[in-house]
């Protein structure tokens, strides 16, 4: 059963130096508060996986927490490149960063296979794509019926996954709605799963029977962090702070400015600060 506990405790109990860790979210529901807590706790040598690492991964990489990045699209969506990730890859600042790069289809299939307890995902993919030549973790199998060559990638099975969701009930069951992305797979593929939520409600009696619900026993910890996705968003609670994404481009352009921003907004902040940050983006009730 999920332990309902403060975010600081959940991160301390579930994220260890050297872990293979996912902080997933596909534009929607990105677990910024959880990642910031991990930054405050100073975890190191992480292998970070995400389909679409964006500014919160830029922050973790810039803070020197990552030794490796596994991804399929690394950018600030709709804005541009990630300057801290670039600095790490191109210049080794603050440390060199190993990368393992895939396509979205491969990563989606690999998370799916991880949730399904399988060692690999097999699919028609990477045809003619040069990634297959530079990533030794892209292999192939031969269809035993037709002889067709199919792509094979290892399933993604993180030590721990962090996701943000709309809400939990008192038992610790978790509800995710809207752009559900790869949230369910990230949780089910992982050894441990920490979910930040906007609120805890009494029950899910009014929830659609086929809604995306993670039963309490499939989750390790649930933490209430209102606004915990900011500047990403939570469908039904608050909208995306697009201006913050745009502003990041300039903040991250300079190492010192980046460090100052992290000190003020992350290191000196706490999980209680997110509710305020989303105030002006709240949906009409």
């Amino acid at each position, binding site marked *: 059963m999920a332990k309902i506990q403060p975010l600081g405790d959940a991160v301390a109990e579930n994220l260890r130096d050297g872990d293979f860790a996912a902080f997933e979210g596909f534009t*929607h529901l990105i677990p910024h508060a959880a990642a910031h807590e991990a930054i405050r706790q100073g975890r190191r040598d992480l292998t970070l996986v995400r389909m*679409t690492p964006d500014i919160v991964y830029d922050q973790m990489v810039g803070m020197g927490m990552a030794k490796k990045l596994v991804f*399929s699209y690394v*950018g600030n969506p709709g804005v541009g490149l990630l300057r801290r990730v670039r600095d790490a890859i*191109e210049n080794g600042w603050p440390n060199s960063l190993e990368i393992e790069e895939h396509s*979205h289809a491969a990563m989606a299939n690999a998370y799916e296979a991880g949730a399904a307890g399988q060692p690999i995902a097999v699919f028609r993919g990477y045809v003619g794509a040069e990634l297959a030549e*530079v990533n030794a973790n892209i292999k192939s199998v031969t269809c035993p019926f037709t002889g067709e060559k199919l792509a094979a990638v290892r399933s993604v099975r993180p030590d721990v996954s962090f996701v943000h969701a709309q809400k939990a009930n008192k038992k610790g069951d978790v509800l995710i709605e809207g*752009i559900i992305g*790869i949230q369910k797979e990230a949780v089910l593929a992982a050894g441990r799963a920490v979910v930040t939520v906007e609120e805890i409600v009494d029950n899910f009696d009014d929830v659609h029977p086929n809604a995306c619900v993670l039963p309490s026993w499939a989750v390790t910890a649930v933490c209430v962090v209102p606004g915990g996705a900011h500047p990403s968003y939570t469908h039904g609670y608050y909208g995306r702070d697009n201006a913050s994404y745009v502003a990041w481009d300039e903040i991250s352009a300079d190492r010192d400015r980046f460090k100052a921003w992290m000190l003020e907004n992350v290191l000196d902040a706490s999980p209680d600060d997110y509710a305020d940050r989303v105030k002006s*983006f709240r949906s009409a009730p």
Partner: protein
Amino acid sequence: MSGVHPDEMMTIAASRVLNSDDVCFVGIGAPSAACNLARLTHAPDITLIYESGTIGTAPDVLPLSIGDGELCDTAVTTVSVPEMFRYWLQGGRVSIGFLGAAQLDKFGNINTTVIGDYHKPKTRLPGGGGAPEIATSCGEIFITMKQSRRGLVEKIDFVTTFGHGVGGPARENMGLKTKGPTLMVTDLAVWKPDPETKEFTVETLHPGVTREAVQETCGWPVKFSDGLAVTPEPTELELTTLRDLQARTKAAHAGAA
């Protein structure tokens, strides 16, 4: 028509090739603008799919990301990302994939991964995202990008996304059954692959654009179609609709609602 910006012409020309029966996998940026312009003008029933899992969306403003909330609010349904890639993209349900590019060669092969060497990049770009399998799974591929000698190059630094390979029957030889790139719309012209060689060939020049302007902004010797024509001018409706859409988008993304 005076006062039409080349970007606007590009978006409008790209929008015209879409119709209401199309099921279109939309990349962010110029493809998204073209697809939504088509939906708001002559193709009201076009199905737009974003890789975030939103199927049949009809946003009022252009999304900043592929997963903006409005895409879900207006979608026919929103599925998980694995389902999007497995059932809808790999399943062959998408007729048109609409891609942008950082670097492109004359056979429509795309680089969005690195400038320079992969392991020691001069510039690390975002990577392929959905493009490698969009390019092989969709019925056909439309490309839209602004022309420049840095973008349209003789040899791309990295083949992120396979187009027509070395040209000719390269796709069939790889076992691909889909058509690959069948159209490119730039800020200067509309291009189509030669039926035999698959080399992109200019079919129409946008109003006021010269052959020389196209060649100056392209890194390979440009082929022009024997029947080279001029792209029809934007209509009033097209231009007004696009400008209204861009204005709504700008206001929405500027900050808090």
